[in-house]
């Protein structure tokens, strides 16, 4: 909402403060200022000058030498402007003054342009005559300004040489842009903002005085109104203006509209726009001669109807679009835009004025469906006060009379079957103070309320809420009004008392923190990926057409196909990030991510999906499968799960190398996987010649079993007996299988097994490998005899022999 301060002052004449103070205090009382533009920024020493005499420049065809009367003296100015003539009044910036910008339309410099006297082709010039652009404005605001050349004051501006030209142009003003919150519909109007300004600065507020208008004629002879769908149109008011005299609006009105960014057109159009800004109530004007049957009917359109709006476009309608009809058919889309067939033209003679109240939600949804959002629909969709409609109507008719734009017909048609009921609230000062933590005196609160036009009746202890304050409905709302005017700054700062609570994180967060630390200690950096992705991901990951993980939740209104499904597989984000790094030639990249996958119970979704947090580790460059496995082992060790995890060779993950992947099993249940990325997947992610590794873990499964509890196991008192075994076996046998047999047969005295060598090559038979282990035996109760250790080792070897595993010769 843009508000020129000059317009606000029309209702709060005593408002007297700097722009900065205005901005600051309005913000602190709840009207947040987005932006404030000083229209006279960088305009210095600019006066009205009268060109007394023009001579040719001796050395330049395009320049002339002007003698300009600037009130106190006559100065010589050399100009190239094409539109100068003797006797005209123009804005002149004097030597040492400043203008906002150049006249070529380029952006204005921060500190404007300083103007100094100087020679132009050998002739002294003591200033400059200004175009409207040089004054920091535009032809949108000053349509009378020439397209090319200096601004010329016409007779309507009562100016004389030496006057402040900035003042004469109304540029000693600031346009303040407020961010209005959706609850304060009343503030989308100049009157509403003026009321806030008056309350904030404790100055009297003068609402426009609306006088009785109209002649002896009767509006009912011209028009009748019927509202069929009162749910969508709670109020409809209509008046008639005859003998229309189209003309220009007065300067003050044009200026105010221009400051709002509305281009002045003619008196009738300008009045409807002016009242819309002043009262926040959209108005519409129909050519009454086009209204068939002297009748307005407000009702829903039929599905499939079409209609030509006044911008010449054909609009598709449906049953939920409210239409304004005459006796024979539609003449406008209610609250959104009038029709081509009823629009006001320059030769209009008699006009129907409409100020109605339409259901905000319906207007918002209709305007969305039709694809047409206008200034009017933008106001209506906020949900306007029906009481305001008639006030605005009468204000518009008053302006018609004041501007002599036509003759207002007496009377008003007002269809308002269910007038809004006045809202009252009990005055509860203690409650307000209790909620705020303040001690504001009740009389002070009532003073705040009075400024907001909230009346108090001491007899009943009731506050009477004005109809335009649709946001005041409970004691908390009133407490906020107290807080705003008492000042949020003045409310004390305390800390909550009451029962002390222990600050804590969930166990799951603690597990996550541990995992982050382990990942980071191992060189992995934290990444962050989107939760939605493309359905093409499944093909990129070579997943089977019938893979149940393809059953993903689909967003009904996504930003595009690439962001249309909620991920069910956790690796796409990290793979994409690895590829990005690889293609930027970053070396040795290690990333981790904590993110959710979203697994629906069934589709379409009827209940919330299972959101499972996954830890994904991805790396390329230095390191291999076992580097990654080492990270997982360290993590499980930290989480007290080292003994419960096994790595099972697998071919299950289509996006991993079939010979280089393992499932991570916790107590026999799959909780994740790790492996080298399948070369074709690398290609799909545009990282050929890169061999990344991935690991993923399902965090809830880990959290369920993780523990930070440790019990002291004692330090061994008796010596250990070591046995190194060098074994020869088939290449296809995994070390894990061998270890499993050793553990089974080793019994409780086998303390540890450590793999210390794996060898494949010329020293062993083809198809075989040599694997060496160091076994440690120990009893917590006594020193072991060599013989009993030998027995155990024999038992192990005997079992291994069954698999064709033998001691290396």
């Amino acid at each position: 909402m843009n508000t020129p301060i000059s317009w606000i002052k029309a209702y709060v004449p005593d408002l007297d403060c700097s722009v900065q103070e205005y901005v600051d205090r309005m913000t602190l009382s709840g009207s947040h200022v987005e932006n404030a533009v000083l229209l006279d920024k960088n305009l210095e020493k600019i006066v009205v000058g009268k060109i007394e005499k023009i001579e040719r420049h001796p050395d330049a065809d395009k320049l002339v030498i002007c003698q300009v009367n600037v009130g106190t003296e006559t100065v010589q100015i050399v100009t190239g402007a094409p539109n100068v003539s003797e006797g005209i009044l123009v804005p002149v910036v004097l030597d040492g003054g400043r203008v906002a910008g150049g006249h070529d339309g380029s952006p204005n410099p921060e500190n404007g342009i300083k103007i100094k006297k100087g020679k132009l082709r050998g002739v002294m010039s003591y200033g400059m005559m200004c175009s409207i652009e040089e004054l920091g404005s535009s032809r949108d605001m000053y349509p009378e300004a020439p397209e090319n050349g200096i601004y010329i004051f016409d007779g309507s501006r009562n100016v004389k040489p030496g006057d402040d030209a900035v003042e004469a142009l109304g540029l000693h003003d600031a346009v303040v842009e407020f961010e209005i919150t959706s609850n304060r519909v009343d503030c989308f109007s100049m009157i509403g903002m003026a009321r806030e300004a008056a309350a904030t600065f404790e100055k009297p507020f003068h609402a426009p005085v609306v006088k009785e208008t109209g002649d002896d004629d009767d509006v009912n002879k011209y028009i009748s109104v019927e509202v069929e769908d009162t749910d969508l149109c709670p109020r409809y008011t209509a008046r008639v203006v005859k003998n229309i005299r189209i003309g220009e609006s007065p300067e003050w009105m044009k200026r105010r509209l221009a400051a709002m960014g509305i281009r002045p057109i003619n008196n009738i159009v300008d009045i409807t726009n002016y009242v819309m800004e002043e009262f926040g109530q959209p108005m519409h004007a129909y050519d009454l001669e086009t209204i068939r049957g002297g009748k307005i009917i407000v009702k829903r359109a039929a599905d499939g109807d079409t209609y030509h709006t006044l911008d010449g476009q054909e609009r598709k309608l449906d049953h939920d679009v409210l239409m304004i009809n005459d006796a024979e058919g539609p003449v406008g889309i209610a609250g959104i835009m009038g029709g081509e067939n009823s629009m006001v033209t320059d030769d209009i003679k008699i006009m129907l004025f409409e100020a109605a109240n339409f259901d905000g939600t319906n207007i918002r949804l209709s305007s969305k469906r039709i694809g047409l959002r206008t200034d009017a629909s933008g106001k209506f969709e906020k949900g306007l006060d029906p009481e305001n409609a008639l006030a605005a109507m009468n204000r518009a008719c008053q302006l018609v009379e004041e501007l002599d734009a036509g003759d207002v017909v007496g009377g008003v048609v007002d269809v308002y079957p269910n007038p809004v009921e006045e809202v009252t609230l009990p005055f509860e000062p203690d409650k307000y103070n209790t909620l705020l933590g303040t001690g504001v005196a009740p009389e002070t609160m009532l003073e705040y309320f009075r400024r907001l036009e909230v009346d108090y009746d001491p007899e009943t202890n009731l506050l009477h809420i004005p109809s335009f304050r649709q946001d005041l409905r409970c004691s908390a709302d009133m407490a906020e009004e107290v807080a705003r005017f008492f000042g949020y700054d003045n409310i004390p700062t305390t800390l909550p008392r009451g029962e002390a609570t222990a600050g804590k994180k969930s166990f799951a967060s603690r597990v996550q923190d541990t995992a982050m630390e382990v990942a980071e200690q191992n060189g992995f950096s934290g990444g962050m990926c989107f939760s939605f992705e493309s359905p093409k991901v499944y093909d990129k990951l070579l997943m089977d057409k019938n893979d149940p993980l393809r059953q993903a939740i689909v967003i009904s209104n996504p930003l595009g196909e690439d962001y249309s499904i909620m991920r069910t597989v956790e690796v796409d984000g990290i793979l994409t990030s690895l590829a990005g790094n690889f293609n930027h030639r970053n070396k040795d990249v290690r990333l981790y991510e904590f993110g959710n996958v979203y697994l629906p119970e069934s589709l379409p979704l009827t209940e919330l999906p299972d959101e499972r947090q996954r830890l994904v580790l991805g790396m390329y460059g230095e390191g291999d499968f076992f580097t990654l496995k080492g990270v997982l082992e360290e993590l499980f060790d930290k989480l007290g799960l080292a003994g419960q995890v096994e790595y099972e060779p697998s071919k299950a993950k289509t996006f991993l190398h079939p010979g280089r992947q393992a499932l991570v099993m916790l107590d026999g249940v799959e909780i994740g996987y790790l492996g080298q990325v399948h070369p074709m997947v690398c290609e799909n992610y545009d990282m050929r010649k890169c061999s990344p590794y991935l690991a993923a873990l399902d965090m809830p499964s880990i959290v369920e079993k993780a523990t930070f509890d440790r019990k002291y196991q004692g330090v061994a008192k008796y010596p250990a007996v070591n046995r190194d075994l060098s074994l020869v076996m088939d290449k296809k046998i995994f070390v894990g299988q061998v270890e499993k047999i050793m553990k089974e047969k080793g019994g409780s005295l086998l303390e540890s097994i450590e793999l210390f060598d794996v060898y494949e090559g010329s020293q062993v038979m083809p198809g075989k490998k040599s694997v060496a282990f160091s076994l440690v035996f120990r009893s917590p109760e006594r020193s072991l005899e060599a013989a009993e250790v030998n027995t155990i080792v024999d038992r192990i070897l005997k079992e291994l022999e069954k698999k064709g595993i033998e001691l290396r010769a």
Partner: protein
Amino acid sequence: MKERIEQIRKAAAAAIENAEKMENLNDVKVSYLGKKGELSKLLKGMKNVAPEDRPKIGQMVNEARAAIEEKMKEKVDVIQRAFLEEKMKSEVIDVTLPGKHLESGHRHPNQIALDDIERVFIGMGYEVVEGPEIEYDRYNFELLNIPANHPAKDEQDTFYINKDILLRTQTSPVQARIMETGRMPIRVIAPGRVFRSDEVDATHSPSFHQVEGLVVDKGITFADLKGTLQQWAEEFFGPDTKVKFRPHHFPFTEPSAEVDVTCFKCGGKGCRMCKGSGWIEILGCGMVHPKVLSDCGIDPEVYSGFAFGIGLERITLLKYEIDDMRLLYENDIRFLKQF
């Protein structure tokens, strides 16, 4: 005899003094203290000494031996020390070469900011809780006083799965879920991922994070809200941080406020980061709307509360002076390594 001993002692001392290397010292040792050395020779000549003088002479010889040994020991130390010095001179390293260390990974800046926020609130007695990212309309809107067709629903550009289920647009639904449990008092923060259909650009992302805060108890006031956020801001941004509360509107709080802190780059003087104002907007907050309390089963006549919502990315970008939000999601190692 006595003179002889003294002579040997002096000669030995001189020889030790002149020795430059360990070999020289060894020679000295052999020729004076060895089996065929001077002192041994003397002892062999004892038979020529009167028996009554023998103990005295013996003692003198032993004293001389001890003195020579002592001298030698001193000299050994000197020579060894000199040798070590010489050796170390050849072992000079270039201390300006870079240090070696285990290359650790780096935490994501968003996570660092979250860790910092959590730490402060945990210290103030808050529990960290979470809620689902795919959420019912009821929790995301309805229970937060945003009924069907409320314009705020449009403002938040919601991603819908269907008419009842959506991607949460805010962490506020966690408020409703916590209040519904009925456990009092409530003092929680709820960080998490939220979604809005904004196209990706330097300042927008369809997916970002918020940190919700909620306190509900008997007698909670707006002054408590101010004090809490003031304390948090001082601990998070630094002790000189000032906080400004501006009235605002949110459907689920009343009164509501937006909160600015003094710009942490310029300290309030005005700079490019704060667009010259000296203040930076960091969060929205307010007293929990009585309708929200009662809809969640809490009697607003007995309990009151406050809530706040911090935009995590906003704080991360400002705190680390990151000029493009897209960097947070690209996971380029050259970016991540800087934190």
